C-alpha cells in the first residue's frame, strides 16, 4: 500500500505523528476540561473501534486516542463530528475533524462550579476564550484558575488568568473572633489584622483569594459582586529558557482579557521568527526579542482597562537560560 500523507496538514488536523510508522493519535479538544458523559462515551467508542482501546489524558485537559491507523483518519473525523458540536468548538464545518491545533486546548480548574474557593466560572470563561481564539495555528497557551491557589498551574502558560474577589467588610456583622485573620495567615498572605476588635485589611497585600469570606462565621466578609482577575504572562516550559509567568495586570475584567489575548495574535503575526519551526514560537521569546513595551502596545490596543485595574509597567522573568549556561552549581 502506498502511504503518501501530508504530515503538516495531518498535524494541523489534530492528529499526531507517532514513532510507530503509519500509526497516529487523535487529539480531542476539551475547552475548560469539561466534557459531557455522552461525548466521553463517543471518545471511548473511537478508541475501541479505531484505536487500541486506550485513552491518554493529556496535561492540558485534552484527550488523546492512540493506536489509530492513518488511513482511518477520515472515519475518525466523521466520528468526531458530534463531539466537536457537543463541546461547542468554534468551527462551522464540523465534518473534517479539528481545523487547527496550534492554539492549545484552553485549560481550567473546576472553579466556582465545584470548588469552595473558586472566584468565578472558570469553565464558562475558558469556553468563551476558546471560542474567541480557536481555530488558530499560532502556538498560544491560555489557562484559567479559580483563585490564587493556581491549581490549574496557569503560571506555565502564555496567559494565566487567576480569579479574584475584593472582600467586602461589614463591621456591623463582625464579632472580632479573628478567624479571618488567622486563616488569611495560615492559608494566604497575612493581609488582615485585628485592631480594636475589628478587622483591617492591607489592600496592597491582599491577593483577593476570598479565604476570609469562606471562613467568616457571620458574613461580615462577603464577595464583591464584580469578579476580578489577575493576569500572569509569558510562562513556559521547554528546552531553552523555561520560566514561570509573572504578574502583569490585577483587578482586571473579563472583557479586557479577551481583547488582550486576541490582540496578541496580531502581535505574533507581526513579529514571529519567520524561521520558527512549524511556525511555532513561544510568545515570550518574541517579547524578549522585541521588548515588553512593544508587546504592551499591541496587546492593549483599543483596550480600556478599568480604573481599578493595576498594571505592571515592567515585568521581570528571572530564570535559567539553558541555551547559554547548562552548568550545575
Amino acid at each position, binding site marked *: 500500500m502506498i502511504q503518501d500523507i501530508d504530515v503538516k496538514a495531518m498535524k494541523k488536523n489534530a492528529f499526531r505523528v507517532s514513532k510507530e510508522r503509519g500509526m497516529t493519535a487523535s487529539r480531542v479538544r476539551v475547552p475548560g476540561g469539561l466534557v459531557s458523559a455522552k461525548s466521553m462515551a463517543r471518545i471511548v467508542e473511537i478508541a475501541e473501534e479505531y484505536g487500541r482501546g486506550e485513552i491518554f489524558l493529556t496535561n492540558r485537559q485534552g484527550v488523546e486516542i492512540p493506536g489509530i491507523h492513518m488511513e482511518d483518519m477520515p472515519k475518525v473525523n466523521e466520528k468526531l463530528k458530534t463531539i466537536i458540536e457537543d463541546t461547542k468548538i468554534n468551527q462551522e464545518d464540523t465534518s473534517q475533524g479539528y481545523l487547527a491545533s496550534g492554539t492549545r486546548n484552553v485549560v481550567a480548574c473546576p472553579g*466556582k462550579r465545584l470548588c*469552595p474557593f*473558586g*472566584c*468565578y466560572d472558570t469553565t464558562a470563561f475558558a469556553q468563551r476564550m476558546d471560542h474567541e481564539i480557536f481555530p488558530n495555528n499560532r502556538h498560544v497557551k491560555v489557562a484559567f484558575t479559580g483563585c490564587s491557589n493556581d491549581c490549574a498551574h496557569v503560571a506555565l502558560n502564555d496567559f494565566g488568568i487567576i480569579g479574584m*474577589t475584593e472582600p467586602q467588610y461589614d*463591621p*456591623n*456583622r*463582625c*464579632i*472580632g*473572633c*479573628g*478567624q479571618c485573620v488567622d486563616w488569611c495567615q495560615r492559608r494566604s498572605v497575612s493581609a488582615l489584622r485585628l485592631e*480594636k*476588635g475589628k478587622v483591617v485589611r492591607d489592600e496592597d497585600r491582599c491577593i483577593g483569594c*476570598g479565604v476570609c*469570606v*469562606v*471562613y*467568616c*462565621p*457571620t*458574613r*461580615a466578609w*462577603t*464577595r464583591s*459582586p464584580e*469578579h476580578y482577575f489577575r493576569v500572569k504572562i509569558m510562562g513556559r516550559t521547554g528546552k531553552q529558557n523555561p520560566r514561570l509567568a509573572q504578574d502583569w495586570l490585577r483587578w482586571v475584567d473579563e472583557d479586557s482579557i479577551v481583547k488582550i489575548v486576541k490582540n496578541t495574535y496580531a502581535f505574533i503575526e507581526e513579529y514571529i521568527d519567520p524561521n520558527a519551526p512549524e511556525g511555532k514560537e513561544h510568545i515570550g521569546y518574541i517579547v524578549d526579542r522585541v521588548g515588553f513595551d512593544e508587546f504592551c502596545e499591541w496587546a492593549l490596543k483599543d483596550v480600556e482597562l478599568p480604573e481599578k485595574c493595576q498594571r505592571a509597567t515592567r515585568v521581570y522573568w528571572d530564570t535559567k537560560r539553558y541555551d547559554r549556561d547548562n552548568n550545575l552549581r
Partner: protein
Amino acid sequence: MGYVLDGEGLDGLVRELARDYLVFAPVRKVGAGRFTDVDQVIYDFVDDASQIELDVKSDYSFKELLTPLSQTLFYYTEDQVREAGGIGAAGDPAREGDARDVLVLMRACDLHGVKRLDAMYLHNGPEDSFYRRIRDRVHFVLLGCPQTFEHCFCVDMGSNVAPDNWEFSLERSDEGYACAVANESLRPLFERYATASRDVVPAHVTQNEVHVRVPKTVPLELRTSPVWDEYNHRCIGCGRCTLVCPTCTCFTMQDVAYTENGRVGERRRVQASCMIDGYSTVAGGASYRKQHGERMRFKVLHKVYDFRQRFGYDMCVGCGRCDDVCPEYISFAACVNKLSDAVDEWDAQHEGSVARDA
C-alpha cells in the same frame, strides 16, 4: 378570621405597614454566601414586599435585631458616659433615631426562640436594659410553614405550632397570599388590600424528616463519654452553629479606647460562641475546654439539658440552622441522638443505681 391577598395587595399592605413600622424580614442577599455567587438569606429592614424571602428558611435568624452581632452600648469621655441609641446594628445612623415599633416576620420555631431569649435576658436575674429597650418595640408576624425544610426538627422539640404572640400571619396560598389576623386593630388595613376574606389557619408542619430524641436526664459520668471524642477532630471550632442559632445568647465585651490615654472610647458587646477559641479564656490567660469535643458537649448539653434545668424547657427549638451551616457536616441532631443512646446504655448498665445529674 383571615384574608386573601394577591401580589398587588401584599405590596400595598407591606408598603403601608412600612410607613408605621420598621419591618424586619428575611431577605435574599445576592452573592452574600461563603462561596461565589451563592445567596444568603439574612434578616434586614424592608419597605417592599418584593424584598421579603418567603420560601426558604433564613440562614441567619431574626435574633440579630434583639441581640446584634456587634452593638455599641455606650460611649465614654473623660467624665461622661452616653448610652448609644438606636436599633439594630451599631453605627447604623440611618436607623438610630428611628423610634417606630418593629414588625418582625418569623416562623413558628423562631417565635419559640424569642421565649428563650426573653428568659435569658429578662427573667434570669436583673433585666438586660439594652435588650428590654428594643424588645418592648418588637411585634411579630408569623410566617406559615406549609412544609418542613431539610434539617428542621421542630416537631420533636414541640415548636412546630407557633405561640400566640403574633399580630397576623402570612404565607403563600393558591389565591396568592393568605393571612390570619389576630390583632383586631389591623383589620381595616387588611380590608383595604385583601381580595377576599375567609378563615385562615396558619400552616404548620406536623412531620419532619429529621427526628431527635432528647435525653430526659444525663448522668454526670457521661461528661467523659466517647460520644464527644469524634468532635475533637471533626469540629473546627468556627462557631457558625451558635451564631446562626435563634436561641444562643452568649456575648462578650469589647472596650475600645480611641486615644492613647484611653480616656475616650466606647464599650461594645459582640456575640460570642462557646465553640470559638477564647470563650473560656479567663484573666491571666488560662483557658478551659480547649478540645472541640468538650465544646460540643458544652453546647449540646446547654441546648437540650442545662437550660431545661433552670427554665423547665429545652433551649433548642429544632430550627435545624446549625445542621444547615456546619462546614464540617457535623449534625447537632445526630449528636443529640448519640447522646440519648449513650444515656440509655448507661441506664442499662447501672440499673437500680441513682444517676447524679450532670
